[in-house]
């Protein structure tokens, strides 16, 4: 039995309605408890800001395409190289760091739970292997279903229950957490070098539209009672005028779940563009934010862009090819049979570039214009908008109008006429930041009942203590202090152990993986469905028995069973 007592913590715990209360946190064997014995080890937080461990609800840190981003970028690896030191292994990389690099840097920022945004089922084993080497966070992987042939056929046949059954079988087989749709239909079209332009374009051969895919899978998701909603990367990412497509997609979504949203729309910044071409490109953050304000069934994340070098990577293959045609630098693409695809190119976002400046503004606007912080979470779609190490700066920008104005003065001068940002006075408070970086993310992912994102007794003892006193710092003026504090915790506690302190990681740690196994009746067990098996055997290049990810790949196994209505 190990016990730890964090004393004099200034706690903000939005899921429990605690906002800046000084209290003690008792921890026993990795869980928060009511109280501990006198033998407990004591940490004096001295009134510092104490939050539940950070939860990143959309990031790309592990798996085939992330690793390919590393593989093709030795120049990126030259930055951020550190030697082995104490419990820390050597790390390399800036925009796509090595797995240890990701883990240590997230941990130092107080993050304890990460959701890998896109995992191709066929290559799931790879993601899980990398999770093992991301030791200081608990992880889960959204599984890609955007171009799944069996699902497209079931949708064409109008059989939502079969769609659900295929999702159930696949999630269980690949130890996935949630359902991710990336440019639904577009990734299948891309395997012919084509794309779909918006939600009404039929997919070649399968003749279903993205709208049908989104709606059917949303319904199937709810039939399975998955903890998380469908996680959608809308069609038409990154093109001028795409906001109408985004609104169209949002409009498809009924409110089906009282506990959480029915749709999680990711990196909405990339989908909130006005204009008809790059010349008249402008922000359409306002209509998007208004739309979301009126619909509790939708939660989004920012997908903030920050200036500098990074690597874009997504399952949205055709979008990356378009980017390649703009930049004509290096381009990787990886289509995955019967399932999905991906693309990677390195980019540099420049302040001097008008489009980049507008993109930077849009992300901030979304967070500032959306009334409820529970509906717009903080993200950069790491590393697409920027590497996650930029989060503290984003927090600074959201909390300080003065900082925003100072930055705005350095961007392209024409930005002002294209975006509403300069007119927005709102400055977010500590509570709102806590929602956007942990409580809201945990609720959106549906993992608060699993003890994530809050500090109630019974919760996982994941705690971040930042070297900052909220009553002594005025974030509006002293934004640099805010940035510094969020960049480096005083203590990061993971599963009841101090894993990072003042920028140093102290233990080797071991990752736990959360995954979902929906329970379905025999008739809906795709593992026994002759048609499914026959097609699998014929068109995949791996055998069905070699497809599922074995238990060996999950060191700490957190299997979540759901009762499906099938």
């Amino acid at each position, binding site marked *: 039995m190990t016990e730890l007592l964090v004393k004099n913590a200034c706690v903000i715990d939005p899921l429990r309605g605690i906002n800046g209360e000084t209290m003690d946190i008792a921890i026993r064997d990795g869980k928060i408890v009511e109280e501990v014995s006198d033998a407990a080890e004591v940490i004096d937080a001295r009134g510092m800001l104490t939050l539940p461990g950070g939860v990143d609800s959309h990031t790309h840190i592990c798996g085939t395409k992330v690793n390919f981003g590393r593989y*093709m*970028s*030795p*120049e990126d690896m*030259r930055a951020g190289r550190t030697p082995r030191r104490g419990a820390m292994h050597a790390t390399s990389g800036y925009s796509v760091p090595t797995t240890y690099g990701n883990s240590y840097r997230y941990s130092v920022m107080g993050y304890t739970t990460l959701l890998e945004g896109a995992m191709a089922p066929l290559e799931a084993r790879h993601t899980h292997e990398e999770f093992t080497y991301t030791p200081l966070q608990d992880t889960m992987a959204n599984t890609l279903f955007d171009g799944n042939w069996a699902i497209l056929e079931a949708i064409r046949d109008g059989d939502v229950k079969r769609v659900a059954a295929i999702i159930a079988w696949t999630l269980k087989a690949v130890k996935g957490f949630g359902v991710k749709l990336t440019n639904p239909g577009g990734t299948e079209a891309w395997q012919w070098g084509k794309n779909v332009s918006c939600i009404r374009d039929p997919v070649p051969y399968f003749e279903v539209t993205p709208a049908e895919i989104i709606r059917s899978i949303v319904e199937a998701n709810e039939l399975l009672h998955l903890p998380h909603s469908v996680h959608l990367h809308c069609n038409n990412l990154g093109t001028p005028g795409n906001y109408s497509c985004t609104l169209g997609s949002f409009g498809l979504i009924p409110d089906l779940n009282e506990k959480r949203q029915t749709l999680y729309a990711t990196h909405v910044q990339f989908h909130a563009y006005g204009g008809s071409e790059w010349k008249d490109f402008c922000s359409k953050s306002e209509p998007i934010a208004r739309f979301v304000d009126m619909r509790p069934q939708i939660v989004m994340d920012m997908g903030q862009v920050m200036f500098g070098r990074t690597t874009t990577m997504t399952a949205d293959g055709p979008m990356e090819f378009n980017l390649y045609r703009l930049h004509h*630098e290096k381009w990787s693409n990886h289509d995955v049979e019967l399932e999905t695809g991906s693309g990677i190119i390195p980019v540099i976002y420049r302040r001097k570039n008008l489009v980049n400046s507008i993109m930077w503004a849009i992300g901030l606007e979304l967070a500032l214009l959306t009334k409820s912080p529970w509906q717009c979470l903080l993200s950069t779609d790491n590393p697409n908008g920027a590497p996650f190490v930029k989060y503290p700066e984003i927090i600074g920008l959201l909390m300080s109008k003065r900082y925003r104005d100072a930055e705005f003065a350095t961007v392209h001068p024409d930005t002002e006429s294209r975006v509403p940002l300069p007119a927005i006075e709102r400055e977010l408070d500590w509570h709102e930041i806590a929602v956007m970086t942990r409580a809201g993310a945990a609720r959106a992912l549906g993992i608060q009942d699993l003890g994530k994102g809050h500090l109630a007794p019974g919760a996982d003892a994941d705690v971040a203590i930042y070297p900052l006193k909220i009553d002594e710092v005025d974030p509006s003026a002293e934004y640099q202090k805010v940035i510094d504090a969020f960049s480096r915790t005083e203590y990061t506690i993971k599963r009841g152990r101090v894993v990072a302190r003042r920028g140093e990681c102290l233990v080797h740690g071991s990752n736990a993986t959360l995954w979902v196994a929906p329970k379905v009746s025999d008739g809906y067990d795709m593992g026994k469905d002759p048609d499914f098996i026959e097609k699998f055997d014929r068109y995949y290049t791996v055998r069905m028995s070699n497809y599922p990810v074995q238990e060996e790949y999950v060191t700490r196994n957190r299997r979540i069973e759901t009762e499906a209505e099938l």
Partner: protein
Amino acid sequence: MKVTLAMKPAAKWFIPIEAESIVPKNFLSGTDLRVWRGNRELRLDEVFSVSVEGDADRAEDVEVVLSGDTFRLKRVGEYLDAGKITVLGGIGMHCGNFMSGGTIEIHGNADGWLGREMAGGTIVCRGDAADYCASGYRGGRKGMKGGTVEVFGRAGDFLAESLAGGTVIVHGDAGDMTGAEMRGGTLVVHGDCSRPAANMKDGSCYVYGTARGMIPTFKKIGTVQHDGRTLIRFSGDLANRGKGNLFVKGYEYLD
């Protein structure tokens, strides 16, 4: 100030030594520097006999002279910005990486990656330079961006790969893929070379000898007079929508 570093004989002479600390400005504050032999960190005087004559306040006034068997000494003059390094014998890989100013003079041969990604300054190599002289780094798009590299002997393969600026002059022959991916700057080869300026985007490449294995996607434009020579002018690599210029004395296709 003149710092003379004479290499001492070592038991495991074959293990390379990395000595990026050997740049003139570091000697302004003494000779207590560290170098690495494989994975062991050593004091400078464990590897060299060090002698210092005179003193200086500015790096510009420091000259470092290297003598002895220095062909396994890597990364000498990395990030050199001022002052002079003279190598009496040969020098190991990565000499003058990223240098932005100052001078390096090598009396013997230089090993690979001489002046990799340099941005300014001058490198003179009196002997031969091995592969990747004045080139870029793996995965990078820009190689050398400025300064001058002059090699009086031969140069190896991939000379001035991804050259983006500055001038590279080789008085002898150069190897295969000379000036591959050039995107700027000037490359002059007095001797022969193979497949010059492949996939070039921009910049100028002069071959005063014969270009063997000439890439078939250069368009012949005519002849020009250059430095008292008649050269055939080709325009940049069509495969890469290129705009660069390639001037050769003679050429042979691999047909």
